[in-house]
């Protein structure tokens, strides 16, 4: 055990070089920097945005429209005279992004049931989301205006009827059923909440597996290239300790790297979503209550199972990578030999992100289940849906997979194979 820790320390020292740490920290700094910039832009968008409003009607109805606009986080600069050109020029000079013109005869037209057109000018200086956000908000404000005015008109035409019953004779009342539990909530709200809570897990798992695999394959290939492996394997140290220390070091360094990336990404995402990762914090109380009623929360044993599944997924990837690394003759070749592993990780990553695995054909389901990395990717939704047995099967399969591949790796290290395995596609030419 003592020698294992000596080897582990050396492996970690070998992996945590300035060449590896500096770019890693640089990426995190960039993430934080970009997150802060986006965050400050988002904050700017939250303060009432000044817009130019030309109210040519100057009526009670047009005043009501302006009041609704004020309530939707705009600070209108209202003028009662002028032309479209003047109002746009004024908006441009004040660096405002939207100008609105309420035409003359607006109130009379509305009252005579003639649809009225308000002109909305959006001054676009680029094509980012931020550039069009104000006109989108204004559109929502106009929808609210339409709703309010149509209610008023309907009430005026027939005071006995409820305007809502006319406009929406059919109302939707959503129920979501999960297992035996049921809640009065829309499926979109549930899906949105779950996605916001589980988005980061597959990303981290993918990052860790890719990084760790490359690290371990490169570590073995470098030892072969520098012939340090021969020295090590002729020393009084067990081959199992050599394999285990490489597995552990690559796993630890990959976790650290993923942790650092995650830290940077949190800042970045917080900048975009205004503080809540994936918008999870924006969920309303009714949805939260429905989520709890449906049992869509992870308990402590659930988290332990999830952790075990993720951990075994990483170990399984490392066990494959250590074997693939044995085929590489130098560090450069190591990047190439782990490509099949990347594909094995990418397939379940994409499938579980975009498809419902349970609705796939039987053949495809078996294919996905046979890939060991599908199981940690599917663990979170399975736990949320109460399919704990599926998670256990996945854990057992991963453990079996890991043991088999570590056994093969140990066999390779204990034999000549570690020095003789090569990937060669060239045919020997006859002399």
């Amino acid at each position, binding site marked *: 055990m003592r020698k294992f820790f000596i080897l582990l320390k050396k492996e970690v*020292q070998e992996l945590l070089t300035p060449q590896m740490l500096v770019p890693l920290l640089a990426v995190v700094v960039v993430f934080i920097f970009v997150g802060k910039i986006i965050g400050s832009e988002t904050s700017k968008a939250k303060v009432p945005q000044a817009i130019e409003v030309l109210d040519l009607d100057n009526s009670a109805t047009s005043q009501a429209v302006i009041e609704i606009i004020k309530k939707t986080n705009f600070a209108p600069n209202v003028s009662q005279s002028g032309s479209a050109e003047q109002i746009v020029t004024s908006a441009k000079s004040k660096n405002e992004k939207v100008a609105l013109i309420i035409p003359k005869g607006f109130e009379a037209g509305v009252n005579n049931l003639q649809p009225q057109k308000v002109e909305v000018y959006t001054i676009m200086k680029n094509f980012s989301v931020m550039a069009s956000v104000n006109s989108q908000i204004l559109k929502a404000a106009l929808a609210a205006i339409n709703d309010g005015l149509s209610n008023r008109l309907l009430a005026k035409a027939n005071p006995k009827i409820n305007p809502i019953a006319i406009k929406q004779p059919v109302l939707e009342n959503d129920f979501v059923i999960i297992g035996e539990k049921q809640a009065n909530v829309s499926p979109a709200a549930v899906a949105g909440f779950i996605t916001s809570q589980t988005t980061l897990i597959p990303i981290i798992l993918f990052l860790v597996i890719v990084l760790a695999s490359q690290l371990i394959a490169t570590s073995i290939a470098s030892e072969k290239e520098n012939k340090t492996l021969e020295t090590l394997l002729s020393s009084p140290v067990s081959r199992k300790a050599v394999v285990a220390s490489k597995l552990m070091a690559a796993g630890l360094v990959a976790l650290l790297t993923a942790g650092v990336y995650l830290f940077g990404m949190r800042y970045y995402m917080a900048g975009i979503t205004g503080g809540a990762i994936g918008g999870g914090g924006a969920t309303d109380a009714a949805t939260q209550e429905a989520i709890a009623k449906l049992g869509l929360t992870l308990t402590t044993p659930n988290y332990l199972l999830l952790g075990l599944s993720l951990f075994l997924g990483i170990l399984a990837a490392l066990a494959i990578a250590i074997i693939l690394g044995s085929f590489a003759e130098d560090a450069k070749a190591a990047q190439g030999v782990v490509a099949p592993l990347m594909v094995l990780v990418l397939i379940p990553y994409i499938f579980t992100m975009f498809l419902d695995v349970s609705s796939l054909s039987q053949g495809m389901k078996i294919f996905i289940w046979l890939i060991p990395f599908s199981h940690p990717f599917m663990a979170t939704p399975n736990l949320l849906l109460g399919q704990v047995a599926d998670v256990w099967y996945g854990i057992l399969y991963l453990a079996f997979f890991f043991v088999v591949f570590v056994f093969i790796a140990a066999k390779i290290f204990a034999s000549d194979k570690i020095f003789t395995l090569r990937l060669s596609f060239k045919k020997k030419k006859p002399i």
Partner: protein
Amino acid sequence: MPKAVEVKNLSKSYGNIKAVDDISFDVDENEIFALIGPNGAGKSTTLRILATVLSLSEGSASIYGLDVQKEADKVRHIISYLPEEAGAYKTLSGISYLKFMAALFSDERHKQKEYVDMAIGICGLGERLKDKVKTYSKGMTRKLLLARTVMTRPRLAILDEPTSGLDVINALEIRNIVRDLSSQGMAVLLSSHNMLEIEFLSHRVAIIDKGKIHDIGTAEQLKEEYSAKNLEEVFMSLTQKM
């Protein structure tokens, strides 16, 4: 008393290729024994088998009576192996590398310190030991590795081309170190394709080519037997006869 090395009818095959073909030799305690021959003769394969890095296909090999195949773990405690053109961990400093290797050979702190102190004395790198190995010249790396190989005072040192690629001064220094250690009781098994160098360094030599040992003896005996001026001429007359 068992021999330091005892090799009997040893063969090693890679598929249809026989890298080592039915060779036998032995090495006494305190002896410097050299395998000499051109590149690809089977020298390194033989040394790697004795260093427990490769398995043998046929025959047997033992170090101080311990079978290299069946008792590899015990063998690793009494040997030390310097592979041809080996490197050290580039991100470690010279001193850290020595400490790391010393810790693999002994659990006791004072023993580890003893090993490292000995290596510091042998390699002669002084303050440069604090620098990263990647900043070393080829000669400095080789001296560091040779010091690492012998610092544990192994009962048998296996040195594959110990002076390969070194300049005259570095090669001379390494030869002197090997001779000193042998005089202190260490058996040395080395390989070289530089036959003139071996003539001055080793007590006995085995001439190997195409996986087979053609003759074994002291340099003087072989020269006399083949009426040659040096070992190169011995080698030429032996291999041309085949």
